[in-house]
Protein backbone atom coordinates (compact mmCIF):
# COMPACT_ATOMS: atom_id res chain seq x y z
CA UNK A 1 0.00 0.00 0.00
CA UNK A 2 2.81 2.38 1.00
CA UNK A 3 4.71 1.34 -2.12
CA UNK A 4 1.70 2.24 -4.27
CA UNK A 5 1.38 5.66 -2.63
CA UNK A 6 5.09 6.30 -3.13
CA UNK A 7 4.84 5.19 -6.74
CA UNK A 8 1.88 7.51 -7.34
CA UNK A 9 3.83 10.40 -5.82
CA UNK A 10 6.69 9.80 -8.23
CA UNK A 11 4.34 9.35 -11.18
CA UNK A 12 5.30 12.54 -12.93
CA UNK A 13 8.82 12.74 -11.64
CA UNK A 14 11.95 10.75 -11.31
CA UNK A 15 10.77 7.15 -11.29
CA UNK A 16 8.89 7.54 -14.58
CA UNK A 17 11.83 9.28 -16.25
CA UNK A 18 14.27 6.67 -14.98
CA UNK A 19 12.06 3.90 -16.33
CA UNK A 20 11.75 5.52 -19.75
CA UNK A 21 15.52 5.99 -19.86
CA UNK A 22 15.98 2.32 -18.99
CA UNK A 23 13.63 1.39 -21.82
CA UNK A 24 15.66 3.57 -24.20
CA UNK A 25 18.84 1.86 -23.02
CA UNK A 26 17.24 -1.54 -23.63
CA UNK A 27 16.22 -0.43 -27.15
CA UNK A 28 19.78 0.65 -27.94
CA UNK A 29 21.46 -2.45 -26.52
CA UNK A 30 19.58 -5.70 -25.85
CA UNK A 31 16.89 -5.02 -28.44
CA UNK A 32 19.53 -4.60 -31.20
CA UNK A 33 20.81 -8.13 -30.56
CA UNK A 34 17.38 -9.70 -31.03
CA UNK A 35 15.38 -10.58 -34.11
CA UNK A 36 12.24 -8.68 -35.05
CA UNK A 37 10.06 -10.70 -32.66
CA UNK A 38 7.25 -8.32 -31.78
CA UNK A 39 3.85 -9.02 -33.35
CA UNK A 40 2.68 -5.47 -32.82
CA UNK A 41 3.37 -2.03 -34.23
CA UNK A 42 4.63 -0.04 -32.29
CA UNK A 43 6.81 -2.69 -30.68
CA UNK A 44 6.29 -3.57 -27.01
CA UNK A 45 9.25 -1.48 -25.82
CA UNK A 46 8.05 1.56 -27.81
CA UNK A 47 4.55 0.99 -26.48
CA UNK A 48 5.86 0.81 -22.89
CA UNK A 49 7.86 4.00 -23.41
CA UNK A 50 4.86 5.90 -24.75
CA UNK A 51 2.36 4.73 -22.12
CA UNK A 52 4.72 5.47 -19.23
CA UNK A 53 5.36 8.94 -20.63
CA UNK A 54 1.70 9.62 -21.33
CA UNK A 55 -0.12 7.94 -18.43
CA UNK A 56 2.46 7.84 -15.63
CA UNK A 57 4.56 5.06 -14.16
CA UNK A 58 1.89 2.92 -12.45
CA UNK A 59 -0.64 2.76 -15.28
CA UNK A 60 2.22 2.57 -17.79
CA UNK A 61 3.77 -0.49 -16.17
CA UNK A 62 0.40 -2.25 -15.95
CA UNK A 63 -0.36 -1.51 -19.61
CA UNK A 64 3.11 -2.65 -20.63
CA UNK A 65 2.69 -5.90 -18.70
CA UNK A 66 -0.70 -6.45 -20.33
CA UNK A 67 0.79 -5.73 -23.76
CA UNK A 68 3.52 -8.36 -23.23
CA UNK A 69 0.80 -10.87 -22.39
CA UNK A 70 -1.07 -10.02 -25.61
CA UNK A 71 1.99 -10.22 -27.84
CA UNK A 72 1.55 -13.63 -29.46
CA UNK A 73 1.18 -14.83 -33.08
CA UNK A 74 -2.63 -15.20 -32.73
CA UNK A 75 -3.07 -11.48 -32.02
CA UNK A 76 -3.56 -11.04 -35.77
CA UNK A 77 -6.93 -12.79 -35.45
CA UNK A 78 -8.14 -9.84 -33.39
CA UNK A 79 -6.62 -7.18 -35.65
CA UNK A 80 -9.95 -5.96 -37.06
CA UNK A 81 -12.00 -6.33 -33.90
CA UNK A 82 -9.80 -4.99 -31.11
CA UNK A 83 -6.94 -3.29 -32.90
CA UNK A 84 -6.43 -0.78 -35.69
CA UNK A 85 -5.72 -3.24 -38.49
CA UNK A 86 -2.39 -4.54 -39.75
CA UNK A 87 0.72 -3.14 -41.42
CA UNK A 88 3.45 -4.87 -43.38
CA UNK A 89 6.99 -4.33 -42.09
CA UNK A 90 9.71 -6.14 -44.00
CA UNK A 91 8.22 -9.58 -44.67
CA UNK A 92 6.07 -9.59 -41.52
CA UNK A 93 2.48 -8.57 -40.98
CA UNK A 94 2.14 -6.67 -37.71
CA UNK A 95 -0.94 -5.66 -35.76
CA UNK A 96 -1.38 -1.93 -35.10
CA UNK A 97 -2.03 -1.26 -31.42
CA UNK A 98 -2.24 2.47 -30.73
CA UNK A 99 -1.20 3.60 -27.20
CA UNK A 100 -3.69 6.52 -27.42
CA UNK A 101 -6.54 4.01 -27.17
CA UNK A 102 -5.76 3.30 -23.50
CA UNK A 103 -6.76 6.69 -22.02
Amino acid sequence: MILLIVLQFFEFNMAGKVTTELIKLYQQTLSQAQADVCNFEPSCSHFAYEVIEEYGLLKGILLASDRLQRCHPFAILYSKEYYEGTIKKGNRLKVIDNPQKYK
Partner: protein
Amino acid sequence: MFVLLIFLNFADSLYKWGEFRKAVLEYKRLLFLRKIDNSYAYYQIAKCYENLEEFKKALVYYQKYMAEKNDIALIPKYAFLYFLTGEYEKAEYLLETSPTRKSKALLAFLYLKEGKTGKAERILKHLNLEYHSAGIWTIPSYLIPGMTQILHGEFKKGILSFILTMFSGYMVFNEFKSKNYLSGIILFDVLFIRFYTGNIYNAKRSVANYNLKKLKKKYEIP
Protein backbone atom coordinates in the same frame (compact mmCIF):
# COMPACT_ATOMS: atom_id res chain seq x y z
CA MET B 1 -10.43 30.47 -73.27
CA PHE B 2 -8.52 33.36 -71.74
CA VAL B 3 -10.02 32.54 -68.33
CA LEU B 4 -9.01 28.90 -68.76
CA LEU B 5 -5.42 29.92 -69.53
CA ILE B 6 -5.34 32.10 -66.40
CA PHE B 7 -6.59 29.23 -64.24
CA LEU B 8 -4.08 26.82 -65.74
CA ASN B 9 -1.23 29.31 -65.41
CA PHE B 10 -2.22 29.96 -61.83
CA ALA B 11 -2.24 26.26 -61.01
CA ASP B 12 1.13 25.72 -62.68
CA SER B 13 2.58 28.76 -60.88
CA LEU B 14 1.38 27.51 -57.50
CA TYR B 15 3.12 24.21 -58.25
CA LYS B 16 6.32 25.99 -59.22
CA TRP B 17 6.32 28.06 -55.99
CA GLY B 18 5.87 24.94 -53.89
CA GLU B 19 2.27 25.72 -52.85
CA PHE B 20 1.33 22.12 -53.59
CA ARG B 21 -1.93 21.93 -51.66
CA LYS B 22 -3.32 25.07 -53.31
CA ALA B 23 -2.12 23.79 -56.68
CA VAL B 24 -4.06 20.54 -56.12
CA LEU B 25 -7.22 22.54 -55.50
CA GLU B 26 -6.79 24.51 -58.72
CA TYR B 27 -6.08 21.42 -60.85
CA LYS B 28 -9.15 19.74 -59.33
CA ARG B 29 -11.21 22.81 -60.17
CA LEU B 30 -10.09 22.59 -63.79
CA LEU B 31 -10.94 18.87 -63.85
CA PHE B 32 -14.36 19.59 -62.35
CA LEU B 33 -15.08 22.25 -64.95
CA ARG B 34 -13.83 19.75 -67.58
CA LYS B 35 -11.57 22.43 -69.00
CA ILE B 36 -8.30 20.53 -69.02
CA ASP B 37 -6.70 17.40 -70.40
CA ASN B 38 -7.33 14.81 -67.66
CA SER B 39 -3.96 13.08 -67.90
CA TYR B 40 -2.05 16.35 -67.43
CA ALA B 41 -4.10 17.26 -64.36
CA TYR B 42 -3.81 13.77 -62.87
CA TYR B 43 -0.06 13.81 -63.32
CA GLN B 44 0.32 17.24 -61.78
CA ILE B 45 -1.94 16.38 -58.83
CA ALA B 46 0.03 13.18 -58.27
CA LYS B 47 3.30 15.13 -58.27
CA CYS B 48 1.85 17.61 -55.76
CA TYR B 49 0.77 14.86 -53.39
CA GLU B 50 4.16 13.22 -53.77
CA ASN B 51 5.83 16.47 -52.74
CA LEU B 52 3.45 16.68 -49.78
CA GLU B 53 4.50 13.09 -48.91
CA GLU B 54 0.88 11.93 -49.12
CA PHE B 55 1.90 8.86 -51.06
CA LYS B 56 -1.44 7.04 -51.00
CA LYS B 57 -3.19 9.99 -52.64
CA ALA B 58 -0.30 10.39 -55.09
CA LEU B 59 -0.74 6.74 -56.07
CA VAL B 60 -4.45 7.22 -56.75
CA TYR B 61 -3.68 9.97 -59.26
CA TYR B 62 -0.70 8.19 -60.82
CA GLN B 63 -3.05 5.23 -61.37
CA LYS B 64 -5.55 7.52 -63.10
CA TYR B 65 -2.74 8.96 -65.21
CA MET B 66 -1.41 5.50 -66.11
CA ALA B 67 -4.91 4.39 -67.11
CA GLU B 68 -4.91 7.15 -69.74
CA LYS B 69 -1.24 7.10 -70.77
CA ASN B 70 0.69 3.89 -70.23
CA ASP B 71 3.96 5.66 -69.43
CA ILE B 72 6.59 2.92 -68.99
CA ALA B 73 9.21 5.41 -67.76
CA LEU B 74 7.00 6.14 -64.75
CA ILE B 75 6.87 2.52 -63.58
CA PRO B 76 9.90 2.62 -61.21
CA LYS B 77 8.59 5.75 -59.44
CA TYR B 78 5.06 4.35 -59.31
CA ALA B 79 6.31 1.03 -57.94
CA PHE B 80 8.47 2.80 -55.36
CA LEU B 81 5.37 4.63 -54.10
CA TYR B 82 3.62 1.28 -53.67
CA PHE B 83 6.63 0.19 -51.63
CA LEU B 84 6.48 3.35 -49.47
CA THR B 85 2.79 2.75 -48.74
CA GLY B 86 3.45 -0.88 -47.80
CA GLU B 87 1.78 -2.45 -50.86
CA TYR B 88 4.74 -4.68 -51.66
CA GLU B 89 2.87 -7.17 -53.85
CA LYS B 90 1.67 -4.45 -56.21
CA ALA B 91 5.15 -2.93 -56.35
CA GLU B 92 6.67 -6.32 -57.15
CA TYR B 93 4.05 -7.07 -59.80
CA LEU B 94 4.71 -3.76 -61.58
CA LEU B 95 8.48 -4.18 -61.52
CA GLU B 96 8.39 -7.83 -62.60
CA THR B 97 6.52 -6.87 -65.74
CA SER B 98 8.84 -3.96 -66.54
CA PRO B 99 11.84 -4.80 -68.74
CA THR B 100 14.24 -1.97 -67.79
CA ARG B 101 17.40 -2.50 -65.74
CA LYS B 102 16.33 0.22 -63.30
CA SER B 103 13.09 -1.65 -62.63
CA LYS B 104 14.99 -4.88 -62.02
CA ALA B 105 17.38 -3.10 -59.66
CA LEU B 106 14.43 -1.61 -57.77
CA LEU B 107 12.82 -5.04 -57.59
CA ALA B 108 16.03 -6.46 -56.09
CA PHE B 109 15.97 -3.54 -53.62
CA LEU B 110 12.39 -4.41 -52.60
CA TYR B 111 13.21 -8.09 -52.21
CA LEU B 112 16.20 -7.26 -50.01
CA LYS B 113 14.07 -4.94 -47.85
CA GLU B 114 11.44 -7.65 -47.50
CA GLY B 115 14.00 -10.29 -46.62
CA LYS B 116 13.46 -12.32 -49.82
CA THR B 117 17.20 -12.77 -50.25
CA GLY B 118 17.02 -15.72 -52.67
CA LYS B 119 14.95 -13.79 -55.22
CA ALA B 120 17.08 -10.67 -54.74
CA GLU B 121 20.31 -12.58 -55.32
CA ARG B 122 19.00 -14.08 -58.57
CA ILE B 123 18.33 -10.57 -59.88
CA LEU B 124 21.69 -9.25 -58.66
CA LYS B 125 23.41 -12.10 -60.49
CA HIS B 126 21.45 -11.26 -63.62
CA LEU B 127 22.48 -7.59 -63.28
CA ASN B 128 26.14 -8.66 -62.94
CA LEU B 129 26.42 -6.79 -59.67
CA GLU B 130 28.97 -7.89 -57.08
CA TYR B 131 27.08 -9.13 -54.04
CA HIS B 132 27.44 -11.29 -50.94
CA SER B 133 25.36 -14.45 -50.75
CA ALA B 134 23.33 -14.64 -47.54
CA GLY B 135 23.60 -18.43 -47.43
CA ILE B 136 27.41 -18.38 -47.35
CA TRP B 137 28.07 -15.20 -45.41
CA THR B 138 25.82 -16.06 -42.42
CA ILE B 139 27.81 -19.27 -41.70
CA PRO B 140 30.46 -17.43 -39.58
CA SER B 141 27.65 -16.21 -37.27
CA TYR B 142 26.40 -19.76 -36.70
CA LEU B 143 29.87 -20.61 -35.36
CA ILE B 144 30.89 -17.35 -33.71
CA PRO B 145 27.93 -15.06 -32.82
CA GLY B 146 28.28 -11.61 -34.32
CA MET B 147 31.02 -12.57 -36.79
CA THR B 148 29.05 -11.79 -39.95
CA GLN B 149 28.06 -8.38 -38.63
CA ILE B 150 31.71 -7.55 -37.81
CA LEU B 151 32.89 -8.71 -41.25
CA HIS B 152 30.34 -6.34 -42.84
CA GLY B 153 31.40 -3.35 -40.77
CA GLU B 154 28.62 -3.46 -38.13
CA PHE B 155 31.07 -3.68 -35.23
CA LYS B 156 28.78 -2.51 -32.42
CA LYS B 157 26.00 -4.95 -33.32
CA GLY B 158 28.46 -7.80 -33.83
CA ILE B 159 30.25 -7.34 -30.53
CA LEU B 160 26.95 -6.86 -28.67
CA SER B 161 25.57 -10.03 -30.24
CA PHE B 162 28.72 -11.95 -29.28
CA ILE B 163 28.72 -10.75 -25.66
CA LEU B 164 25.01 -11.34 -25.05
CA THR B 165 24.86 -14.76 -26.72
CA MET B 166 27.99 -16.00 -24.92
CA PHE B 167 26.92 -14.55 -21.59
CA SER B 168 23.41 -16.07 -21.77
CA GLY B 169 25.00 -19.38 -22.87
CA TYR B 170 27.34 -19.26 -19.89
CA MET B 171 24.41 -18.57 -17.52
CA VAL B 172 22.47 -21.57 -18.92
CA PHE B 173 25.55 -23.78 -18.61
CA ASN B 174 26.06 -22.60 -15.02
CA GLU B 175 22.48 -23.37 -14.06
CA PHE B 176 22.60 -26.86 -15.51
CA LYS B 177 25.96 -27.43 -13.85
CA SER B 178 24.42 -26.48 -10.46
CA LYS B 179 21.52 -28.87 -11.28
CA ASN B 180 19.00 -25.99 -11.36
CA TYR B 181 17.19 -27.45 -14.31
CA LEU B 182 14.06 -25.25 -14.11
CA SER B 183 15.98 -21.99 -14.15
CA GLY B 184 18.31 -23.46 -16.80
CA ILE B 185 15.38 -24.22 -19.09
CA ILE B 186 13.82 -20.79 -18.48
CA LEU B 187 17.10 -18.98 -19.19
CA PHE B 188 17.66 -21.11 -22.28
CA ASP B 189 14.21 -20.22 -23.71
CA VAL B 190 14.03 -16.61 -22.58
CA LEU B 191 17.65 -15.54 -23.15
CA PHE B 192 19.92 -17.88 -25.06
CA ILE B 193 17.52 -18.83 -27.89
CA ARG B 194 16.41 -15.22 -28.23
CA PHE B 195 19.95 -13.88 -28.59
CA TYR B 196 21.23 -16.71 -30.76
CA THR B 197 18.36 -16.49 -33.25
CA GLY B 198 18.65 -12.70 -33.08
CA ASN B 199 22.32 -13.06 -34.01
CA ILE B 200 21.41 -15.13 -37.10
CA TYR B 201 18.65 -12.70 -38.06
CA ASN B 202 21.01 -9.72 -37.72
CA ALA B 203 23.68 -11.57 -39.70
CA LYS B 204 21.24 -11.97 -42.61
CA ARG B 205 20.25 -8.32 -42.25
CA SER B 206 23.87 -7.15 -42.36
CA VAL B 207 24.43 -9.12 -45.59
CA ALA B 208 21.23 -7.62 -47.02
CA ASN B 209 22.35 -4.10 -45.96
CA TYR B 210 25.71 -4.64 -47.67
CA ASN B 211 23.96 -5.66 -50.89
CA LEU B 212 21.51 -2.76 -50.56
CA LYS B 213 24.36 -0.26 -50.28
CA LYS B 214 25.93 -1.60 -53.48
CA LEU B 215 22.60 -1.46 -55.28
CA LYS B 216 21.78 2.06 -54.10
CA LYS B 217 25.19 3.34 -55.16
CA LYS B 218 25.04 1.87 -58.65
CA TYR B 219 21.43 2.58 -59.53
CA GLU B 220 20.84 5.75 -57.46
CA ILE B 221 17.88 4.38 -55.56
CA PRO B 222 16.63 6.77 -52.82
